[in-house]
């Protein structure tokens, strides 16, 4: 029996909502299920804002979260009540049986259980207090209850709890007691919902490892596996945990990490380290990328390998720091003064984060330029089960080294080579002394602003990037679904592609001829492949999480074919149903199409 179950845990900051989600997804991934998960945090650093841990557990690969959950757990009714409608009929709604304080009418979850939903009021607080002497373990009580209700192996949960609290003996002991209390309570509970876990399916290749990991952690791991040795950064939501992970790991591997005073310092130091031959990177979000724009230009003109991980959030300005959005594409691709081309890649899932992070260092080095890896909060915080290969799939050194200098001949750092990539000497290389400047320069690197040189150097900086379109062992784009001519083609990018893929697959199951293409390489743009795909499509739909249709703009700058834009700025991932309805409409099916007719 195939498993496809979505669980949402909703609570207040301090309830342990995210921690419960973390343990649950790790336990389930450890059992062999595929998990895709996305947590929502409140924007306030302190206080009692809403937290949601939401995960989809499957035996077959899933690409996005579902619109409706099969199980909804409330750790705080005031936050969970607005989400009660997200639970499907015959799904399980677990909530605190009794409030501590008097509630007005409608203040308790029982008032919001839909007629088709199945209520499970559990004395969560009481069980926590009885088993541990405190109410802090309510989240773990709930995990015990879920394990019991769905007949999941308790050992898997115990392992995940043990791992979570491995350095906190008292918390581990309390959690064990709380888990058992929830488990025992479930044993006395009559199961009414139809949520059933089938056996997990393991398809792991020998030597590979499977891990439950989020986008930011995958970025950090990709960077480490690609041999990052220097990192400078300044914390910003939602990118901070990239730096935090690297801070824990890099010193153990002989690397260096420094938290700088701001983003300008961070990118300056990264460009400096790249110049010095390091595999160097920084991480930031939209506001930080704005500050880095000038120094990225320095990286471009100096042809210095440097990697910038950017996790987008709702903007502009401080905007919605804990909400997702894909509205920094224009800035990533075009931002900055002058003609400053750079490589921009946007992974579409957590595995892609790992691969893009590692490949970013290869490309930065191979094409001597800044590379931006563009993700967003949805991908930063999204957990997926990822299969890591036994050996990291990244090359250690792709720098084009200069040959032995000929006697008396000066080293041309910016030689106008046939493929536009010049041999790059690292400072200290004997006989290869050269100048690097932010000024336009000649082949030697010496300032020169002649029209001919500026034209030649501009061409060099742009043309060499096209090589990245053939960078080996790296997915720049990919087509899914029907081959050949289709009625509707969906093109998307970044975190939003999972929803697009799900929608396309569902549309196909409804008999609509359709296909989807993900575009990972945003700059340089894979025009030929995208144009070929669009030529196959009667209608082209471009869903994305921004108001302007930034990817659609990019697309139309390269391919002159009209597209239908689907833009949302809700701060939440796009709903599969919305995309599906648009596909139906474009295919002449469904309610909307009928209405229009």
């Amino acid at each position, binding site marked *: 029996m195939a498993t496809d179950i979505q669980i949402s845990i909703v609570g207040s900051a301090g309830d342990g909502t995210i921690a419960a989600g973390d343990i649950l997804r790790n336990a389930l991934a450890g059992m062999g299920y595929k998990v895709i998960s996305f947590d929502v945090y409140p924007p306030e650093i302190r206080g009692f804002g809403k937290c949601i841990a939401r995960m989809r557990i499957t035996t077959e690969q899933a690409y996005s979260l579902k619109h409706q959950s099969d199980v909804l757990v409330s750790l705080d009714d005031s936050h969970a009540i607005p989400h009660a409608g997200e639970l499907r*009929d015959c799904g399980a709604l677990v909530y605190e*049986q*009794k*409030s*501590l*304080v*008097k*509630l*007005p*009418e*409608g*203040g*308790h979850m*029982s*008032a919001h*259980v*839909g*007629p*088709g939903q*199945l*209520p*499970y*009021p559990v004395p969560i607080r009481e069980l926590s207090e009885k088993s541990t002497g405190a109410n802090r373990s309510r989240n773990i009580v709930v995990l015990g209850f879920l394990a019991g209700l769905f007949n999941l192996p308790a050992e898997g949960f115990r392992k995940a709890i043990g791992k979570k609290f491995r350095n906190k003996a008292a918390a581990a002991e309390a959690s064990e007691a709380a888990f058992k209390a929830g488990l025992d309570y479930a044993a006395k509970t*009559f199961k*009414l919902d139809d949520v059933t876990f089938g056996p997990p399916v393991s398809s792991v290749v020998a030597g590979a490892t499977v891990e439950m990991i989020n986008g930011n952690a995958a970025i950090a791991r990709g960077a480490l596996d690609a041999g990052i040795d220097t990192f400078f950064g300044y914390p910003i939501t939602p990118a901070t945990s990239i730096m935090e992970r690297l801070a824990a790991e890099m010193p153990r591997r002989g690397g260096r990490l420094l938290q700088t005073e701001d983003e300008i310092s961070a990118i300056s130091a990264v460009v400096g380290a790249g110049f010095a031959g390091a595999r160097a990177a920084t991480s930031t979000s939209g506001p930080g990328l704005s500050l880095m724009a000038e120094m990225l230009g320095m990286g471009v003109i100096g042809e210095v390998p440097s990697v910038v991980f950017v996790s987008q959030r709702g903007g502009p300005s401080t905007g919605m720091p804990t909400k997702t959005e894909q509205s920094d594409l224009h800035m990533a691709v075009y931002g900055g003064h002058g003609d400053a081309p750079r490589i921009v890649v946007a992974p579409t899932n957590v595995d892609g984060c790992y691969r893009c992070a590692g490949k970013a260092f290869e490309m930065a080095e191979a094409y001597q330029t800044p590379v931006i890896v563009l993700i967003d909060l949805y991908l930063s915080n999204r957990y997926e089960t990822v299969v890591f290969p036994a050996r990291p799939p990244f090359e250690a050194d792709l720098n084009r080294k200069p040959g032995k200098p000929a006697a008396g001949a000066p080293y041309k750092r910016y030689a106008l080579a046939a493929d536009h990539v010049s041999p790059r000497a690292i400072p200290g290389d004997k006989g290869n002394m050269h100048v690097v400047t932010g000024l336009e320069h000649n082949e030697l690197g010496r300032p020169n602003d002649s029209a001919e040189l500026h034209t030649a150097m501009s061409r060099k900086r742009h043309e060499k990037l096209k090589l990245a379109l053939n960078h080996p062992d790296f997915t720049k784009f990919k087509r899914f679904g029907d081959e050949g001519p289709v009625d509707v083609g969906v093109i998307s990018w970044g975190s939003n592609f999972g929803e697009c893929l799900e929608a396309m697959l569902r549309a196909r199951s409804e008999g609509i001829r359709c296909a989807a293409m993900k575009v990972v390489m945003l700059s340089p743009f894979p025009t030929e492949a995208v144009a070929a795909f669009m030529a196959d499509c009667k209608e082209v739909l471009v869903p994305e999480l921004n108001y302007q249709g930034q990817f659609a703009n990019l697309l139309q700058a390269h391919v002159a074919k009209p597209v239908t834009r689907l833009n949302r700025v809700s701060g939440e991932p796009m709903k599969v149903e919305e995309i599906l309805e648009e596909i139906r409409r474009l295919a002449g099916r469904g309610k909307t199409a009928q209405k229009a007719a």
Partner: protein
Amino acid sequence: MANAKNARHHVVIGSGVAGSQAAETLREREPEARVTILTLSSLLFYNRYDLPKVFRGHRDWREFLAFPAEYYKDHRIVVRRCSRVAGVDGPRRTIALEHKEEIRFDTLLVASGGRGYIPEELAEFRPLMHPFASYTEAVSAAAVVPERGHVIMLGGDMIGLDLARTLVDTRHRVTLVAGPQTFWPHEVTDDERPGLIAALEKMGVEVIESADAGGIASIEQGARGLSARRVLFKDRTELYGDAVMPFFGLSPSVEFMLGSGTDIERGLLVNPALRTTGEGIWAAGDVCQIWSDAEKRYRFYYGWKNVRAMGDLAARNIAGGDEPWVPAQDEKLHIGSDGKIQSPFWEYE
């Protein structure tokens, strides 16, 4: 505008036959009003008369629901499940739920029914018995009785005897430990009883008169390798079975109405229009005792037809009517031409 803040709020406690019928009638009569049902049950209204079907292999709760979920959405009837009422403040017109929520009502219909009564001398053995008053209890009981298993039925009211019919029909062995409540709620004379017991035996039920064995001394866990339960009688005889199921009639669920300002005897006392002594509070179903002018006493009326009619009448009167209660069914137990017992309380639609 429906469900607006100023709309009348009719609250019904209980989602059984009476409460559900009342909610439907209230919705019909007052399309703009808010109608809320409070119930302890995890499930929407299901017909408890259908529960014996669990022994015919029907275990999915969806098969027992009287209406699909959409019915409640379409009729704008809010069902608050798993909601235990802690108390009712009649003068303030508020209901306190055990989970600390307070609900205001304009009118209240108490249709909380009754729970299975267990005689005091058997109360200590409750954990070893399998009651049969709800869907979950029915499924739990069915789960412990194997095919052709043996059920020991204590008491044997008309709910139990209805189950006994199904058990015999499905080739289970049924031993009835008969007592004063065996034909509850029918009132049976000493002269009628032997014939009715004989009719039960003709139906395939083994009958032991509890009084003949000196009453039940204890109920125990069965011995290893034997059946799951042992019933010991005071005359030291014993009986082994797979499950022991108590059927001693119903006890009205009215404890939450103490202090509400309504008069209570065993059930809530109501006038022939089903109005209690509390302002704005009505009662219907197994929970209420209706004044009978003919009998000059308050009395209960049982059976699916009566209970449904009470729910309907109470709702009509809540909506402005003033009609008196007229029983909807015969109460006489009789023996059919096939020699088997026929009870009007087993009839339902």
